[in-house]
């Protein structure tokens, strides 16, 4: 069975890649993959031509784990205020995560931002200033009302089966612009709610697996790539590698032509360079103080953790990484303490996100970098207790910025209370199809043959939302 049946034309040969690795930027090439038995195969990460002219070249996904409340952030609902404390007049969903009570108004005021005047709540004063960059989709909906299923659907399209992550699909479809970096990097991901599955390449080749840097259990400050710290001083390790190279060379000569053995020799040299240079790309200490300040980075500051992620994301974007994810881990799940905890959460991310948008723009990177913000679902307008909201996959807000979308616009709408998406509904499959489209990929053509059939990120669904394109 073919394990790799990509039909795109590679722009770089394997030999090119090895040469590039040797002379070029020389970073962490975790996925310079030379698959065994594929003597003539190009590097899996070689740049591939998209299906059509792309609007965006890369994606930065700012994932708000837990489910931020749409009616408290980007989807103002005056009716909710008016009917506060009354029962929801419509039909609650057939399958609910938990029982909810009466309607609960938002504790936050909404105000217009930018020229466009998009309404954003007081939770996000900094992001509100960038309103003209945002395309807020208020009518996103998905299928699963539990975190695990919802995270899996958000990341992989399926809440039931093991499927490749969207980052893996994108990298599979486009390759990476930097052969010495993984094409898909996830910063401080969570190991809960699907864990590895959320950045897994599943049945796609291992080269498209997301490379985690740190995880949500440790501060972003301490995040590193696995086994990147040399076990011995460079001169000593060099001696080992020289002997190894000689031994492996002799072994190869005795074995006859063998791409895997040949590739293996190269992989050690690459690893040696990587461990010397990898920290450079994630080392933000070289950034000017002003920049770090802008992102809110600083010991003890609430914005330090997410600020570091956002700044690292920008550096990775500059370095040509295709898909970058930052995770604000499992904080947004306010079944109770909505007021206090949503305030705290928003404070941690508001400034870093605004800084990222501004920074990308000033570097002229925003035009072809798609920034995507949101959680795995929204929350119910009906209350849980007096100060909480339940999970709600039937309506939530996500926004896109840069990368060829119409800034300063709002797409779709929810009902009067924000319980269901009603107008210009955008299912998660539709959003996936749209993101792929912005990257120049046709979601119906980006397929991989596995276990007897061609798989897609969008399964048999997905409609591209063209209205939001520039």
């Amino acid at each position: 069975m073919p394990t790799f049946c990509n039909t795109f034309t590679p722009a770089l040969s394997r030999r090119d890649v090895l040469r590039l690795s040797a002379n070029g930027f020389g970073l962490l090439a975790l996925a310079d993959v030379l698959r065994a038995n594929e003597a003539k195969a190009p590097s899996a990460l070689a740049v591939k031509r998209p299906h059509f002219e792309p609007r965006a070249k890369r994606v930065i996904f700012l994932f708000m784990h837990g489910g931020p409340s749409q009616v408290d952030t980007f989807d103002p609902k005056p009716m909710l205020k008016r009917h506060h404390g009354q029962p929801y007049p419509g039909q609650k969903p057939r399958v609910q995560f938990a029982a909810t009570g009466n309607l609960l108004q938002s504790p936050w005021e909404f105000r217009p931002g930018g020229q466009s005047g998009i309404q954003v709540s007081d939770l996000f004063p900094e992001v509100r200033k960038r309103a003209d960059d945002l395309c807020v989709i208020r009518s996103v909906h998905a299928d699963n009302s539990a975190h695990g299923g919802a995270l899996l659907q958000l990341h992989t399209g399926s809440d039931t089966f093991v499927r490749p992550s969207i980052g893996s699909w994108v990298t599979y479809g486009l390759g990476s612009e930097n052969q010495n970096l993984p094409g898909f990097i996830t910063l401080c991901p969570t190991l809960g709610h699907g864990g590895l599955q959320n950045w897994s390449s599943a049945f796609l080749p291992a080269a498209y697996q997301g490379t985690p840097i740190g995880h949500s259990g440790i501060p972003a400050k301490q995040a590193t790539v696995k086994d990147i710290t040399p076990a011995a001083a460079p001169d000593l390790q060099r001696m080992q590698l020289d002997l190894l190279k000689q031994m492996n060379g002799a072994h190869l000569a005795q074995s006859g032509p063998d791409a895997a053995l040949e590739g293996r020799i190269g992989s050690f040299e690459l690893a040696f360079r990587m461990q010397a240079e990898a920290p450079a790309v994630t080392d933000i200490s070289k950034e000017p103080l002003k920049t770090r300040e802008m992102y809110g980075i600083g010991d003890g500051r609430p914005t330090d953790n997410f600020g570091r992620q956002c700044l690292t994301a920008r550096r990775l974007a500059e370095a040509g990484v295709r898909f970058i994810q930052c995770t604000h881990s499992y904080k947004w799940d306010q079944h109770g303490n909505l007021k206090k905890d949503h305030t705290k959460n928003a404070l941690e991310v508001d400034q870093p996100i605004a800084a990222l948008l501004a920074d990308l723009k000033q570097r002229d990177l925003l035009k072809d970098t798609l920034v995507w913000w949101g959680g795995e679902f929204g929350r119910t307008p009906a209350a849980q207790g007096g100060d909480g909201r339940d999970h709600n996959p039937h309506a939530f807000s996500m926004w896109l910025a840069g990368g060829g979308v119409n800034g300063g616009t709002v797409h779709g709408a929810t009902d009067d209370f924000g319980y269901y998406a009603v107008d210009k509904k955008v299912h998660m499959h539709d959003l996936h199809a749209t993101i792929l489209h912005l990257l120049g990929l046709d979601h119906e053509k980006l397929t991989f043959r596995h276990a007897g059939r061609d798989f897609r990120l969008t399964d048999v669904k997905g409609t591209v939302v063209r209205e939001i394109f520039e």
Partner: protein
Amino acid sequence: MTALLRRAALFAALLAPPTRASAGDDEFFEKKIRPLLAEKCLKCHGGPDGKVKGGLKLTSRAALLEGGDSGPSVVPGTPEKSLLVTAVKYTDDGLKMPPKGKLSDAEIADLTKWVKAGASWPKETAQANPGPKADGPLFTPEQKAFWAFQTVREPKAPEIRNPRAVIRNDIDRFVLARLNDNGLSPAAPADRRTLIRRVTFDLTGLPPAPEEVTAFLNDTSANAWEKVIDRLLASPAYGERWARHWLDVARYADSNGLDENTAFGNAWRYRDYVIKSFNDDKPYDRFLREQLAGDLLPADSDDARREQLTATGFLSLGPKVLAEPDKQKMLLDIADEQLDTVGKAFMGLTLGCARCHDHKFDPIPTRDYYSLLAVFTSTRTMQNLNTVARAFERDPSGSERPEVKADRAKLDQLKKELKKVEQEFSKTPEADKEKRRELHLKAEEKRAAIKKLEAALPAPSAVLAVEEGTAGAYGTQGRNLYVQVRGNYSTPGVEAPAVFPRIIAGEDQKPFVPVGPNPSDKLEANKIRYGALRERSGRLELANWLADPAHPLTARVFVNRVWQHHFGEGIVRSPDNFGRLGERPTHPDLLDWLAVQFTRNGWSPKKLHKLILLSATYQMSTAHDPKAALADPDNRLLWRFNRRRLEAEAVRDSMLAVAGTLDRTAGGSLLNNGNFEYVTNDQSNTRTRYDSLRRSVYLPVIRNNVFDFFQAFDFVEPHVGNGKRASTVIASQALYLMNNPFVTAQAKAFAGSLPKGGSDETRAKSAYLRAFAREATADELSRAVSFVRKYDAALADKEPDAAARRARAWAAWCQVLFASSEFVYVN
């Protein structure tokens, strides 16, 4: 909308006379309905694009009456019973048409009116695209003739005249015949060192010990090779190695994975069962029956009963969405996962593809899928479906020895007595010191007795296991299912009878279990529809059907798996897919011949190994041949033996074995979590540890967070059964071998275990024998010695202690051996 359709719609609209039309009129149809269908429906339902989604055409009245996968789309005169009307009203979550946006209220009203008036269709001849009616045969002749569904017949081994290579058994004749046809010759036999290293890894996953190599080299008897095979097959390491191959297929893991990653605290018992089964050379038909229906097989002893129950853990181990809010979907998803795993593991068929529509490539109609799915929806797999759900466990100690049972009863009694004494004590006034003292002593006595008894009793040990479903067990009583159109339970189609896949078992079958009428079988909104009551689930019947030597797939699929693990590639190179999209066998006759030998030899895996290993084909070298490489670069004809990289487990186990640190303790659990406790959580904390020195097969397999060493070296993705691993070369493997503390620790241990006295050369020599099963050349020895000296010198200003410096230099050298290609590849 295409231009053509637009024109058609416009044309239809122009044709419509400007008169007031009533719903039964031709005019009404032409003015309101036909344009509507053309504009909004035909793109997917029988229009010029040729698409017929859901099997439904909206091109004629007949087509509407016949309907699609969901049944008739109109009931003339009764809009409320017409799916077409339901669909456009957007009231049914699972059926909303057109999918891209609701029709206007006026349009919906028109359609409703039209159906109510009888859904007349005036110009029957004007219909677009009349398609053939689907009343032809169920399967095409091509499908029926597909190789994998044909009965296995024993082919005669081809005669080889003037063979240019050694023939040791019929396997060689089949292979040589194909090589001869293509003008190729097999590689020369491998030397004995290569052979013993190859076969030892193959059968045990460990390198041969130097004395085992020497013994084989010095054995001049004619059956020296056979003796090696027998020794290895008898070693407990054989089961540890080959169980792991099966565990890949069985998607074995110690945690649920998916959304809620809770521990399977008893999964290891299934793993140990598989190891024991291979070591016992359990006949494969038995092995299969136990895993599917061990709970239903007669057991002649308590041990057998326990073993058989444990075996059904195979069905329980799948990943499940444990917080699925839709409990009916959850029930179906669990059964689907089981059926899909069973299909791939035993039949090499991707049955799961037929959940939403007839299998696109293989002759598996949706109805056949639901026939089998009902076996698993009639089986209890879960304790309950609550959030967060738990897998079902059974405690086989019900049949414990009478004395153990008596002891447990005694224990209960003692605990009751203790409680009584304690109560009495608390009621006794403090002033009554004597009585209190007396009671205190009595209580102490009881406590001691309880402690003693508890220590002596075996721990009650539950196993992950299934049982026949009941109404009380979340509605799993034996019942047929209805086909679920588009995989959606709220749109039931026809009832699926209790029959086996018809492409194999025939179109004319009696139900495999007795069925009776189901009084509560009716269509209810948003509920799974169940049909006839089944007397039992049919699990045992399914197991027996699969384990029949006449089944065309069971033996073929298994011998192919065994062949693949010996040669690196199967005769069918897609071991889990024998269907149309799978690969065709490179040696179909050989596959059938092996399948026949296998069943004839009582389904004995060990006899099958021996048959294969005794062939000259297995004993070829990996030598490169430019001519053959050009003609057959993938080595499909087997002109040489395939060089292979060791699997993740074998890389790790080899380091431990060579370093002399391998802990050979067998069985048991290394999981640090309690049963059903979270193994990873949202804060990414985990208590799983991998620092044990035991064989890799005993390390926990944690879904969503697989051991990083395993991840780097292409371990199987444990959510899904998969019989073939990738073999990649990636830089993270190099990083691991260079920098991971496990590797440096093992290199240090290896260095420390080299002979203390004697020369540097002696030490290097001994290391080569242990790591590579061969003598080092003079060149290699001198390079080793000079490396150690150089490294030692370079450490001079870092490490003042000469002995420590020397030890570090040797450790660094040993690490190079671990990282070398020769160490991780087998010729």
